[in-house]
């Protein structure tokens, strides 16, 4: 039997959620960039007009991806990856520096951010390598290979420096965990982050005392299993060292603006007109939304232009203000549906390659979503990460579209996999 029609096998649920999110996103961008005078929706001098153009241009992009041979993605994943790395390297020579970050290429009035596309390329190569039957993620050597695939772009992106994008890549650990990476990687990460934050709030002495107490209790209760005091001691020394070095890292490694963002988060005394301004205005916009919001195009915060960069990273504040708790919950619900649907589809894949890729897509989108919304409501330090399909920007919209539709194509093609 010849290839079945792609159209019949496309997962229309995913496509539908995608379309709804993109349209809702545009509506909010329109509100956030409300024009001075009456103009048409396609006024290309306006932000919403440009976004409309980006959305329309995404349609042929989708058609091209769907009509490609699904095998290409696996076959040329190395090429995509190397191309991506070159694009990242090229930034250091040709990139445009905005606010100290060099992560854009500028062509006339349009910008292009390669790290967005490198995400997809990295996911493809990771899927290819890990799906190899020879690879066993229980082996240290193979773990290293897998980590190196996204570790390399992370290094390049950190040099831009763009901590936000780098963090997104690190979330791929979730995928490796799904594929058999030992769980202590995850736990080390979680505990490390928790200790770092605690060490900033609590006095180190108390924290170390608490850790010691937990370990002693664990040691006593753990009587049945081999309990090697040396391992406990080493662990304790490591944790103590880390807790004590937090102050040093905080004072000497972090940039002033990063410090500010952490200060804002842990409630240190901050100036609401300076470093605290963005978060404060964002909380005011969302917090004043109440149950059903102030109504579309009626948000006083949005209309007053109080939230800076509202159409990009802060777009969710418009949702919160104008559509209230109900609207915000609906949007979150839509996103969660999309993530779970992708994971469901991924688990249904016949090849390991497309399963891993699907997982990568879900992880990427979810991490963006989590970090973006959490930073607006003071659950996470401010990091410049866009909300997928919502935030203004051609690069990010197209990158997320490509990322998602490559998976939709793979999924549609699975009937042909034997």
């Amino acid at each position, binding site marked *: 039997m010849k290839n079945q029609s792609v159209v019949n096998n496309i997962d229309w649920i995913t496509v539908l959620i995608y379309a709804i999110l993109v349209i809702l996103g545009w509506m909010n961008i329109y509100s956030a960039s409300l024009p001075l005078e009456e103009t048409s929706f396609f006024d290309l001098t306006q932000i919403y007009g440009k976004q409309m153009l980006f959305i329309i241009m995404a349609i042929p992009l989708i058609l091209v991806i769907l009509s490609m041979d699904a095998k290409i993605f696996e076959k040329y994943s190395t090429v995509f990856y190397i191309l991506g790395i070159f694009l990242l390297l090229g930034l250091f020579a040709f990139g445009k520096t905005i606010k100290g970050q060099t992560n854009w290429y500028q062509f006339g009035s349009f910008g292009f951010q390669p790290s967005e596309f490198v995400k997809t390329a990295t996911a493809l190569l990771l899927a290819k390598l890990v799906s190899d039957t020879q690879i066993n993620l229980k082996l240290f050597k193979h773990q290293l290979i897998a980590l190196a695939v996204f570790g390399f772009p992370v290094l390049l992106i950190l040099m831009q420096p763009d901590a936000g994008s780098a963090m997104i890549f690190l979330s791929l650990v979730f995928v490796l965990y799904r594929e058999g990476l030992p769980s202590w990687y995850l736990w080390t990460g979680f505990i490390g982050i928790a200790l770092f934050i605690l060490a900033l709030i609590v006095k180190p002495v108390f924290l170390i005392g608490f850790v010691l107490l937990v370990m002693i209790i664990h040691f006593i209760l753990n009587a049945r299993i081999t309990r090697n005091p040396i391992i406990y001691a080493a662990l304790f020394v490591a944790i103590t060292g880390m807790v004590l070095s937090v102050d040093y890292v905080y004072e000497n490694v972090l940039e002033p603006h990063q410090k500010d963002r952490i200060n804002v988060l842990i409630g240190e005394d901050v100036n609401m007109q300076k470093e605290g301004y963005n978060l404060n205005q964002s909380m005011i916009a969302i917090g004043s939304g109440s149950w059903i919001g102030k109504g579309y195009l009626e948000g006083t915060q949005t209309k007053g232009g109080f939230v800076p960069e509202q159409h990009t990273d802060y777009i969710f504040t418009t949702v919160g203000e104008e559509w209230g708790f109900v609207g915000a919950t609906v949007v979150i619900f839509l996103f969660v549906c999309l993530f779970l649907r992708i994971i469901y589809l991924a*688990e249904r894949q016949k090849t390991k390659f497309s399963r891993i890729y699907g997982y990568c897509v879900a992880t990427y989108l979810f991490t963006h979503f989590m970090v973006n919304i959490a930073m607006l409501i003071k659950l996470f330090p401010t990091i410049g990460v866009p909300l997928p399909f919502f935030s203004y920007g051609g690069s990010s919209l197209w990158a997320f579209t490509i990322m998602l539709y490559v998976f939709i194509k793979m999924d549609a093609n699975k009937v042909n996999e034997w």
Partner: protein
Amino acid sequence: MRKLFLPSFIIVIATVLIARLFYLQILDDSYIKKSDNNAIKIVYDYPERGYIYDRNGALLVANQPSYDIMVIPKEIKNLDTLEFCTILKITKDEFIKKIEKAKVYSPRLPSVFLAQLNKNEYAAFQEKIRKYEGFYIQKRSLRDYQVEVGANVFGYITQVNDAIIEKNPYYKSGDLIGMQGVEQMYEEVLRGIKGVKYRQRDRFNKDIGPYKEGIYDTTAVQGKDITLTLDAELQKYGEALMKNKRGGIVAIEPKTGEILALVTAPSYDPAILVGRERSKNYTALYNDSIAMPLFDRGLLAEYPPGSPFKILTALVALQEGVIDEQTQFVCNHGWSYGRGSFMKCHCGGGVRNLNVGIYKSCNAYFGNVYRLTIDKYQKPRFGVNAWSGHLKSFGLGNFMGYDLPPGRKGHIPTSKYYDRWYPNGGWRSSTIISNSIGQGEVLMTPIQLANMMATIANQGYYYTPHIIKKIKGQQIDKKFRTKHITTIDKQYYTPVVNGLFDVFNHGTAAGVRVEGIEICGKTGTAENFTKISGKRVQLQDHSVFVAFAPRHDPKIAIAVLVENGHYGATWAAPISSLMIEKYIKKDTITRVDLERRMLEGSLQAEYDKVINGFYVDPNWEKKNEVEGDKKTEVKEVKDEKKTDTKSGTKKEEKKESPQKNNPNIKTTGTDKKTTVTTNKKQKSEKK
């Protein structure tokens, strides 16, 4: 299990996010109030900027009213552009450009449309303002200068730029901020705090009265008046004396560290940086890289100090115990301090002790003294560090910490510095002997020289020089009230001060004695170099003089630098003596001829030499150096050819040297490395 991890994590996070949103949006209603706060219009009330007085209470800087037209682009409605432009006398293109610029800043926030209207323009516009929705008038106050001097001390005020607004949210578009001088240093004191009125607005942006009956409104806090340590009369006199010359004068009251006069020449009338002409005039000053009127020479002119430095050489040697008052050295019109190394001297030769050494400014004497100081220790490294340690206690080799923005560190070398130049060691006291007479690697600014004299006047201590005397209702910074004590013991100052006094009795400054005032001082010449078409060229020496007076109970310490003025006694010493006389006697100067000669004297011809290419002509040096040497004739012919091509490109060269538009970079500045041996010949002609 592993399959379920990510989905569960997603659901947990989503729940946390929703719970947090529930708390913010439903439970906590404080944000609704804050949002209302945002939707109100803020009207600012600008307080008047503080006045500036001199030490005797004379008003120096006051204010005058000025009116800006502000615009909120989003609120412009039904505008008769033609009429509007006619009233303000602007073209339609200008109008469009200004509106575009305002939109870029913010469509919803006010920005300046037209700044600083005069009274007539204001009156004409005021009549029709009701018709122009989206525009309003903001009253501000501009500076009104009562004197024509002190521009470098006052600084100026200007509209904040975008970078400042971003950095400091107190400032909004169109606000004024102090730049340079005391306007910058005491910005927050002078500025006061602007008052804020909150006006409530409905959905249609209409003002519906004060928000919550004005409970959040704040009244403006008036800027505080400040009193400077400056003596306006002395400052005026100093600027008059420096007319048509380049250089600087710093006068300090030794007992307090108060700056009595801070003159830089050329300067400008502070009033030209007020009003709409400000930007044009400022650009002209900024681009004048030849005379550099924005370069505060009193604070920034960094040169090897020359002879005045000998005072310190003597003090350090006395403290280190390597000489006493009676120690004698023989001067053979110079001093042979090593094989083939000879330091020339023009004091006349003979047996020199401390007193004669100082007033005759004997190079040989101080060379000997310096060598003993360095060689007291087993290794020259320790000697140099001990020496520089003493000098640093005078505040040298570092920023002084005074309350004016610009400054230079000067340079006092340590052993580290020489180890870098001679990585294999091998430097000795003879290598660095030129430090003894203030050449070598030593660099000082006029204010450091003045402070040095203040310290000597006080016999061992100084207060950090400062320009602020009083802030209404506030004490001046503690660092200006803290005594700095030098590492030289008090008893060693007496013989040195006697030597400085004898400079006026039988030394280099005998010609400028002032009847009735016992002045102690020292002349000096500062070598300086410039690069002309890539070649290092020595220019005419700077004339330097330092002094304090009266000898007992000193009231003023002064340093004067006259660029390319040749001997210290030619320009700097007479100017210093006139300044001292003016300050201490407070009445008319008795030495009328000298005064007239100084007031009218001009060094413009000397300065034009650089511009006219006098120093560019390669034959100039040759003629001076090897006159009559036949061998060079052939070369000279060749050089003439070169000269032709050079004179053809002279215009380019002229452009090249002033290309550094940065007023802080001195094109005619010094070149750091100076050595005695290479300049022996030229020095011999000079001293």
